[in-house]
């Protein structure tokens, strides 16, 4: 407490004096203004170009390289923003030691009042870059939203949902919300397919069918394990088929393929499905 008081003595305003602010800024001439505007324009153009180029290239190259290219986008954008910010600060401000101290105080006060949420989102974006709870191209769930991370912006990330909607989520959600990541930078993400059979069904045969369905599907990543988990519900035997598609993007079409194959085989073997509790009540 004593230390804090020595750094920020009570009664002294955090806002620097008028002279300090005047000495902070360089003279704003037309040339400087044009330079600054050009720098902003070029930065904006390059940010867009990086995004478009990376998206276009990553969708053209083989799958193995897709995520690597996408994951490099935040780095290149961050690098570009750092350069642009340094250039603009050098262009507009007299960056001496005392000026920098004054500037940070000013910015802290201004942002603290006016752009609290905005700054929180930006800071969260930077933190999540280092913490890495997800990366570009990952399939994640935040709150009620599930989808592929298709853009990592300054303030928000964008998810493409399975219904092809794009959801913008501020980075600041990482302060409070849990993030579930399905593939963590890998091409494959586990798909769990649920099946229910009547208690009279030959479950060993059903398990065998589920294994074979996974191994026979063209989408299955054969390099990764396939597992079937059986559990008992009051009204049915519950089978969970856990397997990985070659590409996490195919998860829904993969699940469809599995269900079709399993249903065909079950029909062939006359494996009985359960009569659900609702039906029984009816």
């Amino acid at each position, binding site marked *: 407490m004593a230390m804090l008081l020595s750094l920020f003595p009570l009664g002294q305003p955090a806002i620097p004096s008028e002279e300090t602010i005047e000495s902070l800024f360089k003279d704003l001439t037309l040339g400087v203004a044009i330079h600054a505007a050009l720098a902003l324009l070029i930065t904006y153009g390059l940010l867009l170009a990086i995004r478009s180029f990376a998206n276009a290239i990553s969708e053209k*190259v*083989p*799958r193995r*390289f897709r995520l690597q290219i996408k994951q490099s986008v935040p780095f290149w954008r961050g690098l570009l923003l750092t350069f642009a910010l340094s250039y603009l600060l050098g262009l507009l401000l007299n960056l001496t030691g005392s000026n920098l101290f004054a500037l940070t105080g000013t910015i802290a006060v201004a942002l603290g009042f006016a752009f609290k949420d905005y700054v929180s989102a930006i800071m969260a974006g930077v933190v999540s870059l280092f913490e890495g709870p997800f990366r570009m191209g990952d399939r994640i769930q935040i709150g009620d939203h599930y989808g592929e991370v298709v853009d990592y912006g300054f303030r928000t990330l964008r998810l493409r949902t399975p219904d092809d909607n794009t959801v913008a989520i501020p980075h600041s959600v990482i302060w409070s919300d849990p993030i579930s990541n399905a593939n963590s930078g890998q091409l494959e993400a586990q798909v769990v397919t649920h099946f229910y059979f009547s208690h009279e069904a030959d479950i060993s045969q059903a398990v065998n069918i589920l294994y074979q369905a996974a191994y*026979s599907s*063209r989408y299955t990543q054969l390099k990764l394990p396939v597992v079937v988990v059986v559990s008992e519900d009051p009204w049915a035997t519950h089978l969970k088929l856990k397997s990985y598609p070659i*590409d996490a993007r195919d998860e829904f079409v993969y699940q469809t393929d599995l269900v079709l194959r399993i249903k065909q085989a079950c029909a062939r073997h006359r494996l009985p499905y359960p009569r659900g509790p609702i039906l029984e009540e009816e």
Partner: protein
Amino acid sequence: MVGKPIRSFLEALPGRFSQGQTPDPTDDITELPPALRHQLSEKIKQLPIPQDYLAAVHEALKEALNAWQISPDTSNNSLVVLSSPVEAIAPILKASFQDDLPDYEVRQFLGGYQRPPDPLTILDHLRRELEPEQTADKKAEAEKDKRPTVMVIPSLEPCFLRCIQGWEGIEYLQALASQDVSRFWVFGCNHWAWAFLEKVCQVNAYLEQVICLPELTAEVLQTWLDPVLAEPLPDSPNLKFPEDQGNWESLANLAGETSTLAAQLWLQSLRLQSSDLNEDGAITAEATVELQFAKPAFPSLMSLEALDRYILHALLIHREMTRSHLALSLGEAERRIRSRVQVLQREGIIIQWGRRLTVHPAHYHRLCSELANNNFLIGKT
């Protein structure tokens, strides 16, 4: 560690950005006319199996049989010979057993066997073939012949299809081979099918001894392919090579792993003088035409769609399959795959023998890179 992905990436680029090598119109050498190429292609099909292949199978078989004879009760009573998916293994195994093994009774099965329209009947077919009814005559004959038996299944590919219950035939064979140690079993298969079967029914746990066909050297390839040009072709002038030919080494480096791939690349690398062709592209020379052997290169691959990759992966695992089997394996209606098969056929990536589709050997190498880079399980390359 870092080099491998970069190399794969670079390998993937030419196929993506180059759309084939267009011959320089100012060149005075040109490709062979289609009719001549077809004639040569037919002659290549009639070539005998390369001696190195036969020698490798003989040697491995001899060793395995000796080991089995020393301790016949062990379960080491099988040998699997693996080839590339664009190389037919059945004729190689058949030719390997043409020289008699006098101390053994060799029984070859499933010669010319094709996958039946209903793949669920494969198991019954195999049972019928491998467990014939023991009549009294046959029993007496078997008792008279005390030699150990070698059972040869020249190709495992027709014995399975990638669908539910589609590999029960393989499970039956592996159980039969591991339980019946009184007989020695020889199987032929391709690397991709083997890699698939390892994953789905752990076939390598039952059939331990596995050998791969050897790579062919430049000398072997030259000796093997020379007879194609040695005899004159009907209605064509004599063809001959100049003495100095330095591209056999390149051919062996590129395609030595597979004789069919090497033969196709060699055929595509043959050139002749433009002056030997008339305006219709036919050979005009009356006497001998001197061919040139250009530096061999893999043909470029068209940009593939997702469904193309699944089709080609299925074809490489099964080596050859009908359209209906392909559709069944992919879980698609036949009409939905027909158009892509048509495109791949037009591009020369798929070829059709009767009703069966297979991958053109010349595209095998690029397809390996393409499918590996797209995260597919592939066999040895």
